[in-house]
């Protein structure tokens, strides 16, 4: 390697390869620059690709190869780039341009200049071969022409800008620098003025374009007919290119997109259309004077349906050179074949003919792909199943969980204060994923008095499960002696279940007999006893134990066992707790944590179940931190989210942003929203949410508005503005008035089948054509029996029709 000290050793290789892109002439040269000529080149304002090196033979060879393809492009092109020069130079000098010749940069970088400005530098690793150089250089040069999109939302934006204006070519390049990338860039280079080119590498866009298996590292190209859409709200019809991505195919494809329908007054065999040269089948339709308009309409429909695959030519019969017999009204010609005539009955018939028969080759390829795809089907595509399957050699340690049987069930569930019973199936992945959490809970509770965790394998003890009406798996029921089983309705996870069981042990409601006890319940000793379970306390305040609502409240408390800690203060002193507040007894007092002001609600007399929902509602935080465990409670409110994302490190900026929103909240200006926040440290999946919303993760904190229920748009609070209450209000206002551009879209994707259907019927029809076919109407069903009785003649010994296996031959056991 050459170090700093070796600078003088740099032998000047000024090998520049320059080609002028003029519409008439292509001249390209590899030029070796000296420092002087380099400086001169800097002043021409032309584009040059320059490598600074000394022993650069290998690269020189590569660079020489570039001359050819680039000049080819130029020939095809009548591009706006034609007045530019792209020179590709390899250069290192002893003196003036030392900046580029020094140290480690030497030999490891190449530069793209426009004039004296460095457009981009490349690691030699990325420009590893001709394809890579060409694609990267062109991508940089065409930076303004080719849009790079990342998310479907970005693509939609490009689309809506292009509607009624120009068509779009979208290329998906899984890996940059490969021949496909180069082909796309070359196409962009040539057709850049005509179409809007879009490049993407994201699988999200692939899914958006309807690719079934976005994981395959295949390149894709679509043509979006945006120019011709009649209304701006219409989507642009898209047509995928079905052939491999290379320059010739793209060229052909784009040509086909341009000219679907032509006219002629010649016999089919004499018609010369571009399609024949492109190796594409041509469909000829004969038109008569009387029905000309109708024929033309039919032809147009067909041309549209077959666009990209078949060229359509309308032949006017009245032409003197048309000699085709009147009994045919259509003909087609496959590449390298003669014209074949036929009679067209319906447009659908022709489409069918082409799609199912004449384009067989295509179909064949598809089928081959399909077959490969089926082998993919042996890979589990379900995250829960797959993760459980990967544990298949893991023996679950069920020691801390009692396995119940028909014989032990009744005894066990009446023996403990609380028996938690899990009903599960061994073959159900969700059950088996949950049982790991269940064992974790059992281990954590091991040795605790009065609590026992048990499990029933419903694959074996089906009678227990049916007797307890368990129809959903997994199910967790809580049994207490002399009480009906309680269904656990919380998240099926270690934390939630553990908390639920511990909370279940707390007597509910806490009967409080004095204000001092109330105080203790809300923030004193009674409080701290269960502080680690939940900070929230809900207190029912009644003026006396004779109040009608007390029993209802007690019943509600029983129903909420395991979920909420409730206190009951039915006492004449209860009045004190609502004094000075605009609420009368009976009332509900909510304490979120000690030191935070209580919230008080009046308590209407209602049924226990209504009380339960009321209590659950008042328990909800007004500015919650969203977590995986609590999101469903908040989504239920159906409000648009005002979502603040906070980074791992609790920066002052984040704290300030939280405070600002809290301030807005208390002023009541956010009532139509659910303000909430996600801490990316505690909830790392928040990062993926941001990515899906915006396509990238901006510096945090960041405020986003997402209207999940009502709209599809996501708005981003402008990152350059400080997150201040008044700015936020202004922004909300702007969004509501439609003055803000959405930053992303929430797709209303239907969750259809994730894989194509494995169609047994189709396979049967293919492999055993009559097997799955309905019988012809005449046949009698009675014929299923085979009464093949011996007709006549001497009864004689007959062998059974089944060949018996030769006992001498080694037994072949082929059960598997």
């Amino acid at each position: 390697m050459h170090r700093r000290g070796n600078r003088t050793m740099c032998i000047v290789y000024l090998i520049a390869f320059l080609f002028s892109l003029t519409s008439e002439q292509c001249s390209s040269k590899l030029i070796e620059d000296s420092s002087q000529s380099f400086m001169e080149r800097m002043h021409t304002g032309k584009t040059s690709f320059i490598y600074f090196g000394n022993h650069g033979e290998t690269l020189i060879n590569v660079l020489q190869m570039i001359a050819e393809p680039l000049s080819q492009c130029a020939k095809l092109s009548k591009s706006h780039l034609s007045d530019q020069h792209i020179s590709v130079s390899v250069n290192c000098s002893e003196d003036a341009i030392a900046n580029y010749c020094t140290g480690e940069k030497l030999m490891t970088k190449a530069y793209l200049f426009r004039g004296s400005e460095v457009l981009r530098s490349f690691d030699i690793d990325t420009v590893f071969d001709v394809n890579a150089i060409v694609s990267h250089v062109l991508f940089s040069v065409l930076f303004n022409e080719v849009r790079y999109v990342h998310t479907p939302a970005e693509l939609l934006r490009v689309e809506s800008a292009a509607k009624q204006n120009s068509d779009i070519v979208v290329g998906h390049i899984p890996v940059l620098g490969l021949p496909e990338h180069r082909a796309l860039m070359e196409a962009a280079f040539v057709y850049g003025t005509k179409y809007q080119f879009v490049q993407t590498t994201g699988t999200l866009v692939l899914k958006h374009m309807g690719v079934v298996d976005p994981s395959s590292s295949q390149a894709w190209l679509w043509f979006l007919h945006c120019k011709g859409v009649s209304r701006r709200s219409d989507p642009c019809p898209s047509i995928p290119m079905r052939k491999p991505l290379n320059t010739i195919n793209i060229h052909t494809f784009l040509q086909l997109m341009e000219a679907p329908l032509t006219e002629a007054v010649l016999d089919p065999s004499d018609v010369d259309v571009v399609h024949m040269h492109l190796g594409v089948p041509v469909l000829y339709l004969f038109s008569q004077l009387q029905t000309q308009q109708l024929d033309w309409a039919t032809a147009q429909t067909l041309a549209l349906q077959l666009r990209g695959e078949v060229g359509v030519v309308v032949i006017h019969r009245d032409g003197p050179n048309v000699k085709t017999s009147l009994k045919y009204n259509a003909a087609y010609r496959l590449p390298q074949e003669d014209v074949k005539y036929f009679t067209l009955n319906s447009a659908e018939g022709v489409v069918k003919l082409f799609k199912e028969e004449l384009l067989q080759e295509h179909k064949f390829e598809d089928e081959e792909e399909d077959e490969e795809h089926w082998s993919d089907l042996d890979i589990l595509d379900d995250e829960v199943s797959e993760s459980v399957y990967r544990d298949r050699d893991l023996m679950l340690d069920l020691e801390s969980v009692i396995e119940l049987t028909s014989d032990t069930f009744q005894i066990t569930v009446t023996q403990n204060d609380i028996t938690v019973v899990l009903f599960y199936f061994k073959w159900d992945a969700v059950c088996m994923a949950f049982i790991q959490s269940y064992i974790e809970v059992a281990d954590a509770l091991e040795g605790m008095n009065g609590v026992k965790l048990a499990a029933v394998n419903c694959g074996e003890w089906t009678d227990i499960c049916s007797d307890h009406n368990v129809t959903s798996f997994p199910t967790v029921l809580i049994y207490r002696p002399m009480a009906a089983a309680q269904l656990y309705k919380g998240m099926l996870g270690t934390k939630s279940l553990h908390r639920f069981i511990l909370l279940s042990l707390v007597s509910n409601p806490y009967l409080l007999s004095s204000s001092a006890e109330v105080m203790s319940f809300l923030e004193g000793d009674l409080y701290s006893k269960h502080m680690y379970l939940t900070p929230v306390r809900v207190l029912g305040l009644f003026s006396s134990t004779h109040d009608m609502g007390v029993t209802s409240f007690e019943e509600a408390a029983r129903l909420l066992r395991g979920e909420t800690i409730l206190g009951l203060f039915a006492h004449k002193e209860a009045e004190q707790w609502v004094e000075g507040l605009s609420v009368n007894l009976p009332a509900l007092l909510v304490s979120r944590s000690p030191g935070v002001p209580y919230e008080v609600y009046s308590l209407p007399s209602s049924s226990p179940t209504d009380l339960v929902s009321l209590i659950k509602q008042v328990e909800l935080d007004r500015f919650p931190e969203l977590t995986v465990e609590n999101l469903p409670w908040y989504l239920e409110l159906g409000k648009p989210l005002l979502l603040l994302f906070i980074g791992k490190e609790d920066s002052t900026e984040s704290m300030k942003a939280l405070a600002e929103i809290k301030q807005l909240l208390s002023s009541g200006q956010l009532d139509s929203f659910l303000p909430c926040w996600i801490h990316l440290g505690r909830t790392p999946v928040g990062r993926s949410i941001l990515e899906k919303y915006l396509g990238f993760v901006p510096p945090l904190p960041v405020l986003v508005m997402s209207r999940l229920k009502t709209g599809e748009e996501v708005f981003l609070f402008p990152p350059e503005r400080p997150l201040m209450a008044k700015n936020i209000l202004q922004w909300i206002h702007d969004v509501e008035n439609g003055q803000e551009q959405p930053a992303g879209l929430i797709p209303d994707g239907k969750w259809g089948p994730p894989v194509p259907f494995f169609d047994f019927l189709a396979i049967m029809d293919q492999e055993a054509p009559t097997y799955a076919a309905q019988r012809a109407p005449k046949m009698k069903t009675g014929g299923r029996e085979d009464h093949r009785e011996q007709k006549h003649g001497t009864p004689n010994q007959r062998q059974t029709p089944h060949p018996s296996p030769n006992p001498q031959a080694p037994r072949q056991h082929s059960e598997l």
Partner: protein
Amino acid sequence: MSVIQRLSRLLYVLSLVLAASGSGLHGRNNSVSHEYCVLGAGPAGLQMGYFLSRSQRDYIILERNTGPGSFFHIYPRHRKLISINKIYTGRRNKEFNLRHDWNSLLSDRPDLLFQRISQELYPSADDFPRYLSMFVKELGLKVKYGADIGRIKTSDLNGNQGYILTDQNGVSYQCSVLLVSTGLWVPQQVDFLGSDLVEGYESIPTDPEEFKDQAVLILGKGNSAFETAQSILGRASRIHLYSPSPVRLAWQTHYVGDLRAVNNELLDTYQLKSLDGLVEGRLEDIAIVRREKDGGKRRTLYLTLTELLDDQNGNNISKVTGQNLPGYHTDNFSLRQPYDRVIRCLGFRFNFSIFDGSARPPQSSGARGRLPGITACYEGRGTPNMFVLGTAAHSRDYRMSAGGFVHGFRYTVRAVHKILEQRYHNIAWPATELSISQLQSWILRRVNEASGPYQMFGVLGDIILLRGSYCEYLEEFPLQALPQLSALSGRLLSDHGLLVLVMQYGLNQTDTLGPGRAESEWTKAWRSNFLHPVLYYYNTLPTEKDMRQRPVSWPLPRPEAVHHMVEDFLTEWDQPISHSQPLRHFLEHCLQTDLRAFYAESCFLLSLTSRTPPLFCRQGYLRKQGIVGNSHLWQHAREAGLMADHQGDTSVSEYLKHAGAAVVSAMNFDL
């Protein structure tokens, strides 16, 4: 059935109940009235009695003998049942164990099983009536013994057809619904010259010593013929079996009415050329003639052909000469040697004689007319409100399934009872409501334990009525009545279509014991030969016409989509790659929705980033019942590329990407 019809039926039944309660007073000895009369206290009658008693219907079981199951006091003659009584299955699942218990009747008493009576794999026939007695006693079924019904006629009961049964004492029973479970008692006979020289299976001696050194010709090649042959094999000199069709082996045809290997020792002695043999020929063409031998000391019987006796007008059998025997014309004729005995073992037929004109069901088109013809819901053809149960109802699945045998018809009886409940009491077919996200595991549950569809393969199937986000699961509906599903079950169809789960044997085109007999590749599951679950998906209910024109040997018409779950050596369809996932993909296609399961974290992401998250998240997570998992499992899912990884600044989410090929177990079980 229209509502009015149904109402009028209901009223009619009600009025009958009233009439019945009053009848005790004035009827006394002469006339009794019941809503349901069950004729015969055999296994089918008692099974129906149990269901009627459980639903607290007014019923009576009439039995001419003094105890239940009297058929089994005589038959099988050699006293060994060939129905499997497998008491150790390695499993404790009661439903599953019924798959291998062919003798017990269904009840809600978990211990009322045949194994309480016998632990033998092939129990003694005497044990069966004992079991039935126990069944009657413990369940308190109402059986009237000693009532020998000699005559059944129709009668008009408030505009509906009812039946009046008269016993030997002249007592008449007025029944609005008649359930005929008389079984098959009448020996099947074929009329040919000399049939009077033939002994019947029903009356032959069972002591092998009586056959000492005798040559025996047995007509028939069924289980009774082989059972007889087997019992005398050690004493008789030569045993030949003669019947039209070749032996059909149950282990080849999967039909338990064909020759069971339990009784097939004669196949061995035949193939090893140890004096016994099988011959095919028409029964109508033969004649049995007697020739005196050894000065009249020994009766010798010859098999000959009717045409050989026709030379003169008068057929004088006593003067049979050598020319009347086939051996005279064909010197190597198989059955040329004389026999000491000819035994008829041709099975049994339904006793049509007790039915008066309009009460008589027609003869079935199949099964050589030995059985009554019945509709797909087991009602006699042309005899409304009369149903046929048990062995006599076998014409619906003759030579196809197990409807002629206890282990099969106990389920058909249950199905018929559900039809009765709907038709006469407006109680819809029981259904379990399931959310769609639970459907797959419920199907797997049924497939892995249900005994009804397993025993009554191709005949009873589970019906899943799709209703969008949930479905109704109906168990063991008679598939041939599928076009009348709504009327028979009282369950309405939605436009989401329906699924039918059937157990089926396969094409059976390969050698039953030969290579390639079993399929293990799920993608070729439709070629499975052994019993395996098949799911049919229909947009709309098939019509009668669709049903008639169904593909040959299919239980159901061609559906919109079909799914075969590949046969399994252990009949355990619970493996993730070969069973669960293909099933899920099929359901996804039928329901047009993604049915994958997602951890809570993925649901969190999907709930915030799509307007309608996948079904599993909607029905689980968003109802606060998400499956959380743990870091160990998430790690697996992330390594597989199925779960989003939020570490670092991955520019493109690799979410949902397939990766990390799961290694499919390629264990070889070749022995």
